[in-house]
């Protein structure tokens, strides 16, 4: 073992990636992960702090120093066991967690230079497990206790809740609206960032924990919350996600070639339109695409459009600094050739006589005083309008919660935006019903949604363990 004292502690390995010129021509994963040597070397850099800050930085509180210690000792199977005590889907979180703002930001080594590459290490061991096909059913799984729980949605929140509840001995059924499980991991995040084979493997693990997944079941339509209770479910966890796309409300938004990011990504990811006509769902992509928005979804849409052969501009009304996308995603997008037009806001979309998109009129913005979110408010510069030619416009300005469940459930309280109102344990206004993920306000990242789902699981278990449930409304 290398003595860490004689090592340069300031540097971490950079993630191996497909080179930009190559990767824009395929949909394969961009980040290739660390090699075993890189992973072990990086693990050796960990100081094994007595009071590790990283654990607190992790929304699901993975024992990060311990799993890193096992990597250093090349005990990869033990490393994965440690992660899986807290995180059922590490191959997913290892890829999409914004570690730079969570566990890595508090790493002591950051003061010396670069923090430990916790995300890359998590990914390394989970990929190791998937590759060696030794995905073990956690030893923590308790014997069945004869109570049934319905989980609505099979995205990050639903999979987490289902896996944890199953480990506790509950009989869990997931109801998924689409034909494939995975939620946003399947329909939203592209193959080159979240390979669907990885999602399937993680879903398989959840199933092997004893969870049953029923696809094509839209709760609120085929069954209501009330029906589920009548079917004998003792508790219900709602993780149905966001999923009602926002539009801009500008002229020309319904022209042919204007997509919500949700539609664009669903066609490409869930329906595999990038393989059209081998897969039957088409996608309309032109030579010049403009993506409106500055979040991860905007980056995903932009990079997908590039791969489909289009030139791509992303327009955003603030500056790059205010963009909500992960720094790494913006970097990747730019490296691949996505062009950013900051301080630019859309005004009107123009079309031809057949109703196809022709151009986008924009206006220049400047930054004013910070608004209620703390970000500087963008202000239009009068008379600065200009036009950009385009044949595809993708609107990626966020989404609202899907109202299918709240509309069909009497007494399920929502806020003015339609999010389910929950307490700190995820309890909704209906006794026996919990919620987490994008259906509740301020759900944050994938891992934060998972953190909230875990809290709900603890509360569900507490309530159902009592002989007389005392769930307060």
């Amino acid at each position, binding site marked *: 073992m290398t003595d860490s004292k004689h090592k340069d502690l300031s540097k971490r390995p950079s993630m191996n990636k497909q080179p930009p010129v190559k990767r824009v021509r395929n949909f394969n994963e961009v980040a290739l992960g660390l090699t075993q040597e890189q992973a072990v070397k990086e693990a050796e850099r960990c100081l094994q702090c007595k009071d590790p800050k990283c654990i607190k930085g992790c929304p699901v509180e993975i024992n990060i120093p311990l799993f890193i210690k096992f990597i250093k000792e090349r005990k990869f199977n033990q490393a994965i066991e440690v992660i899986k005590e807290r995180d059922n889907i590490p191959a997913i979180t290892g890829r999409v967690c914004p570690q730079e703002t969570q566990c890595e930001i508090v790493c002591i080594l950051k003061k010396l230079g670069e923090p430990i590459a916790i995300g890359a290490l998590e990914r390394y061991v989970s990929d190791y497990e998937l590759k060696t096909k030794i995905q073990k059913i956690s030893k923590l799984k308790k014997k069945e206790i004869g109570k049934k729980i319905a989980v609505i949605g099979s995205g990050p929140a639903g999979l987490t809740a289902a896996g944890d509840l199953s480990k506790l001995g509950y009989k869990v059924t997931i109801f998924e*609206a*689409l*034909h494939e499980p995975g939620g946003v991991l399947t*329909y939203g995040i592209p193959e080159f960032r979240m390979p669907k084979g990885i999602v399937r493997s993680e879903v398989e693990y959840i199933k092997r924990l004893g969870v049953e997944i029923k*696809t*094509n*079941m*839209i709760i609120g*339509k*085929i*069954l209501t919350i009330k029906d589920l209770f009548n079917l004998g479910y003792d508790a219900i966890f709602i993780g149905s996600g966001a*999923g*009602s*796309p926002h*539009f801009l409300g500008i002229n020309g*938004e*319904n022209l*042919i070639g204007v*997509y*919500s990011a*949700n*539609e664009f990504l*669903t*066609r490409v990811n*869930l*329906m*595999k339109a990038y393989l*059209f*006509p*081998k*897969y*039957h*769902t*088409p996608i*309309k992509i032109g030579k010049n695409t403009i993506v409106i928005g500055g979040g991860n979804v905007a980056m995903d849409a932009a990079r997908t459009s590039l791969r489909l052969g289009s030139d791509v501009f992303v327009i955003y009304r603030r500056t790059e600094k205010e963009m909500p996308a992960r720094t790494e995603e913006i970097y990747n997008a730019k490296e691949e050739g996505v062009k950013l037009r900051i301080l630019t806001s859309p005004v009107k979309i123009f079309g031809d006589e*057949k*109703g196809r998109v022709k151009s986008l009129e924009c206006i220049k913005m400047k930054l004013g005083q910070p608004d209620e979110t703390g970000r500087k408010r963008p202000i239009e510069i009068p008379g600065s309008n200009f036009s950009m030619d385009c044949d595809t416009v993708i609107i990626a300005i966020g989404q609202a919660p*899907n*109202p*299918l469940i709240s509309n069909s459930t009497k007494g399920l309280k929502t806020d003015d935006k339609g999010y389910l109102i929950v307490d700190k344990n995820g309890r909704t206004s209906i006794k026996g019903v919990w919620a987490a993920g994008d259906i509740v306000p301020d759900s944050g990242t994938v891992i934060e949604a998972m953190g909230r789902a875990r809290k709900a699981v603890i509360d569900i278990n507490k309530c159902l363990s009592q002989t007389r449930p005392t769930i307060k409304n």
Partner: protein
Amino acid sequence: MHIILDKKELAPNVKMLKVSAPLVARKSKPGQFIVIRISEKGERIPLTIVEKDDKIGSLAIIFQEVGRTTKELGELRKGDHILDLVGPLGKPSEFRKVGTAVIIGGGIGIGEAYPEAKAHKAIGNRVISIIGARSREFLILENEMASISDEIYITTDDGTKGHHGFVTDILEELINKKIKIDLVFAVGPPIMMKAVSEITEPHRIKTLVSLNPIMVDATGMCGGCRVNIGGENKFACVDGPTFDGHKVDFELLIKRLNTYIAEEKISCKMH
């Protein structure tokens, strides 16, 4: 997986399938639809629920073989399975006792007009049906419609059966005869629904139309099916599919329905 219990050819390239889907059948109401996907590589397509049978737990769907997916669906046989079937989707139609309801179905739309007419009859409305097709051989569900209508009119574009002309000719005739019409429900090609709405608007006859935009998930997630209703965008999959015909921007609907014409051709060649 949903087994096909029965299959009938109603007209050239128009088929009816009876599919086992007990849960969906139990919950479905007239006006609602399902989405199906028939193969791993297949598209998701919406289809109206024409009839349901609670006892058998089955749904009937009618479709015209126009694209790759409907052609493949048409090739399935009794005993085959449909890979994915999800529903019931959309808002159920509302039925109230209003007096006289004129139910108009054009082409394949007759399949969707049928459950509406049946429900109006059941609630005690006088049902006048107008059904039309290109030609006699494309006229579907004539007997079924007749059995639940107080009056029925048939039109064909080429005059091979019934009135030589369009369903709108009959509607205008009824209005000119001063027959009191309390409600019109029309379903068929968008151009027909547009014409119907234009005729009834000056007479202030409440007119409902069932729209058929392109859909993907059909759960309100993608917004691909957005239609403009009275200046406001609505999602046909969750806010519809039935809307006030006087408020629908049909031009937009028709344009958006043509989005993938070029891709459809490529896809059909692959079939």
